């Protein structure tokens, strides 16, 4: 083997060994600093305006990167269903929208991340409303942001008056679809009616192009349907109780009494569970994370 070849081989092995060593060292550094080290650093620059100044004019690209980090931050927590660890979500969204006030996707989807109750979301509906209001100030002619605002007021803040006002203001913007006026009226008349919520989530499901949001809307629609069906089943177990002075032990008791045609199944085609106190629950609560009246918290 000539000298040049020998040097090449030794150099190659050395480079590979050094690189492998650097990877191992880096993994050690990352394990010491923890998984959130990189994201924590974003708070050293808590102001979007400062980040914008430091971007040397390339702020729209930085906005995309911050938005991606917000999505990743939310996604990581959403996946493990952890409660109470969304502290950086609003600052990340705030910086994103400071960098690019026209980034509609950050207001629309970011506010849904913020507003949904934990562990599905951050459980911060007030911050979600503030984010959308910021979006409206920056994009006053984009009527869909009023829809998002009304939606948050309705679903998560349960402020039907504010929701009605948001839908009304949005409906006055040229180009707004007529159902905004319908929503304003519905909120004012019967805000707490579940069919109103169904109508809203159906609108989101039909209009969104994002898969994550579509999945969330589908889960909400399933949960709403299951809630309504369980309301009806509980009315029938109550009717059974009034007739026989005891609750049915099995669905067949209700079928024999002529109160049911067959064993009732939830929207995923799994039979509902009948409990001894006459209440009804879904068999698999993970399929229905947004149950309002028959969820895990009502079991406690």
């Amino acid at each position, binding site marked *: 083997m000539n000298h040049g070849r020998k040097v090449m081989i030794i150099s190659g092995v050395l480079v590979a060994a050094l690189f492998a060593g650097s990877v191992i060292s880096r993994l050690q550094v990352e394990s010491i600093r923890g998984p959130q080290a990189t994201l924590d650093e974003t708070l050293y620059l808590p102001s979007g305006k400062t980040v914008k100044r430091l971007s040397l004019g390339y*702020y*729209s690209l930085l*906005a995309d990167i911050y938005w991606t980090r917000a999505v990743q931050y939310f996604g990581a927590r959403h996946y493990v269903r952890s409660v109470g660890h969304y502290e950086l979500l609003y600052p990340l969204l705030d910086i994103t929208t400071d960098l690019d006030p026209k*980034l509609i*996707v950050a207001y629309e989807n970011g506010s849904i991340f913020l507003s949904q109750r934990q562990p599905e979301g951050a459980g911060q509906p007030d911050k979600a409303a503030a984010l959308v209001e910021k979006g409206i100030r920056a994009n006053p002619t984009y009527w869909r942001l009023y829809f998002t605002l009304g939606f948050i007021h309705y679903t998560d803040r349960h402020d039907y008056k504010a929701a009605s006002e948001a839908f009304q203001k949005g409906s006055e913007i040229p180009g707004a679809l007529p159902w905004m006026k319908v929503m304003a009226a519905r909120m004012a008349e019967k805000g707490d009616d579940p069919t109103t919520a169904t109508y809203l989530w159906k609108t989101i499901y039909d209009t969104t192009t994002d898969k994550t949001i579509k999945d969330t809307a589908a889960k909400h629609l399933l949960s709403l349907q299951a809630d309504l069906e369980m309301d009806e089943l509980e009315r029938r177990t109550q009717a059974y109780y009034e007739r026989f002075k005891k609750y049915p032990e099995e669905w067949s008791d209700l079928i024999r009494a002529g109160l049911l045609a067959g064993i009732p199944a939830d929207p995923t085609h799994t039979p509902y569970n009948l409990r001894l106190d006459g209440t009804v629950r879904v068999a698999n609560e993970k399929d229905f994370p947004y149950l309002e009246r028959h969820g895990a918290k009502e079991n406690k």
Partner: protein
Amino acid sequence: MTSRLSAITWNTFREAVRDRVLYNLILFVLLLLASAPLFSQISIGLEKLMLVNVGLSSISLFGVIIAIFLGIGMVSKEIDKKTLYTILSRPVRRWEFIAGKYLGLLLTLVVNAVLMTVGFYVALLIFIHRLQGSDATLLVAVYFIILQFMMMVAITLLFSTFSTPIFSAIFAFALFVIGTFGEDLKNFAAMSQGATRWLATGVAYIMPNFASLNVIAQAAHGESISAHLIIFNTAYALLYSVGVTAMAVLVFERRNLK
């Protein structure tokens, strides 16, 4: 005169190509090909926006870097290699040398930007599948980036006429950074009083203003750019570039090359 000018311009361009400046196009294409699919996987609603922002920001950033690193050696390299003496011993005037260098470097950057723009539109077609009318605004953003190059080339050339390459790079980069704060400088001046106000306003107008040439965000959102902005930005960039190049000529004319 025209033939001498075009000879220097053409040679400057050929020298840049020989320096493998256009290799940056490969990096640009890789960036575009990687960004759209990657960000569509890990983000929400960003595919086109990311492609536009990465594309336009890269065209601008690559160009500014090339302008600085080629521009700073325009004069000093010719002195070091003693080729300047050969050129000036012929019937070539000093201003023709500077103007030729300016046009040659600008031509390099324009060719680079045009090739990048073609690649950028191809990437848009590949990933987004169709172009819309509002995508024409992207061409305005590219045009403004070229105006930015016009100014940056003039600035780096000015520094290269009297400073060493390393200091020219530092000065040119500093002016680029200051230029991105162009509108803030004016706001700072407006907040001060008396003589400071006049002085600060003067400095704000002497410094280049790159902020008004940055319409990447508007283009990415498909917003239209007013014809007035196009006309006055063109006038501003032209006048500023010619002014700074004239200063470079002035300095170079007075420079003792012995």
